[in-house]
Every structure is written in C-alpha cells, then in structure tokens.
C-alpha cells in the first residue's frame, strides 16, 4: 500500500522533505512508517521517544494500523504560543 508521510519542523529538515510517499506492507502501522524513515534518515532516531503522530489529520498512536492512501504525519515536540514552558 502507498501512504503519504508528512514531516514538520526539525523532522522536515532532517529528511529534506515535507512530504514523502512510501510503499509499506499490508498491516503496517505508523511505527512501520517511522522505522522506514529512520532507516533512510538515521538522525531521526534522536526523536524516537519524543515523536507524536497523526493519521489522516487526527492524533493517533504509533500502533495505529495504516491503510492504502492514508496520510501519516510525524510531529516533533510542539512549541506554539509565546515564551517557553510556564513562562
């Protein structure tokens, strides 16, 4: 199956692309897609425990099972708003 992968911020810079398409085996999860990316772009490994993911524009777990045509997004730790932390 073919999935679209969206990357943001530092993850986008590491991969050098905001959007990628990859063919994954049936039964693949979001984690499968992540592992494929880490294989291609090893510095992504730094985000292994900090990354969040979304499938088809909804937050999801890395265990979420993907289907053909899905869009899976990987999100580094977020920093919206202004200032930092509780400041």
């Amino acid at each position, binding site marked *: 199956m073919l999935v679209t992968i*969206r990357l*943001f*911020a*530092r993850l986008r*810079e590491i991969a050098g692309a905001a959007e990628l398409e990859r063919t994954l085996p049936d039964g693949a999860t979001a984690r499968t897609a992540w592992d494929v990316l880490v294989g291609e772009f090893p510095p992504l490994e730094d985000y292994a425990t*900090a*990354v*969040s993911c*979304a499938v088809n*524009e*909804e*937050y999801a777990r890395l265990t979420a099972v993907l289907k053909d045509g899905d869009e899976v*997004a990987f*999100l*580094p*730790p*977020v*920093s*919206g*708003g*202004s*200032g*930092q*932390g*509780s400041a």
Partner: protein
Amino acid sequence: MRAPDERFRVTPDPLGVSAVAALVADPGCGAVTTFVGLVRDHNAGRRVLWLEYEAYEPLAVKAFQQIEEETRERWPSAGLAIHHRIGRVAIGEPSVVIAAASAHRADAFAASRYAIERLKQIAPIWKHEHFEGGEVWIEGATADPGDEAARQMALARACS
C-alpha cells in the same frame, strides 16, 4: 465537512486582538479576556531577531476545537476563540491571540489561562528561533491529547 469556524484559525496574516475578541462576545457575556502572546527579543540568553512559526494546520484547528470542548466541560458558560500566526513574525508582534468570554470574569480569566496552557501542550505548532549568531527549533512538549496528567496541570494553572 463542517463549515470553517472563524473562531479557530491558523494564519500567515497579522493578528488583530479586537477582531478575535469580537468573535466570542454575545449579549450574555459580562466579560471577555484576551491573551496576546508576543514575540520577545530575548530567550535563554540569546538575542532573538525573529521567529518563524510552522503548523500542521488542519490538526492545529482541531486541537483548538478540542481545547474549547475541554474548556466548556470545566466552565460551561465560557466561549473561546484562538488565532495563531504562522510564518515569520517580528519582535513585538502577536504570535497568538486567545479570547475567552463568559457571564462572569473569573471564568473568562480561567478559561483563557487554560487555553494557552493546553495550546502549548497539544497544538501541532513549532517555533523556529532566529537569533544573533544562529537558529534553533524550540521543542517543548511531546503532543499527546490523551495525557491526563498534562491536562490536570493545565487545569491547576488555570485555577491557581
């Protein structure tokens, strides 16, 4: 598909505080509070030149809607609007405007504080800091809308 809700937006355009406030006021409101987050000229000992914000826009708008739903669970009479800027934002300009309306001021203040705390936890928005001598992505919380401890922390800050 739901019609776009003007109250929850991610935009490259400059933010207008009174315009956001106008989205929540109604005749039953005795109070509207506005929170304006500004781009500051210093951070962690660095001289900041400007910030560049990036968002996963459709998910950010959904996160804002979720924040409003959570706010209504705790403060049923409170209405919310959240506009967040993306792209390059200059020092002193607003990066985020939150308006909270309620019958009484206490709920409006609390809902506004809750909203900014939650936004920083779960909105898929990133800040790229350009400072004198370099640039860095500011990375805060791992976004997990189901993290109950994080939600309780936001509630505690709102009610302190």
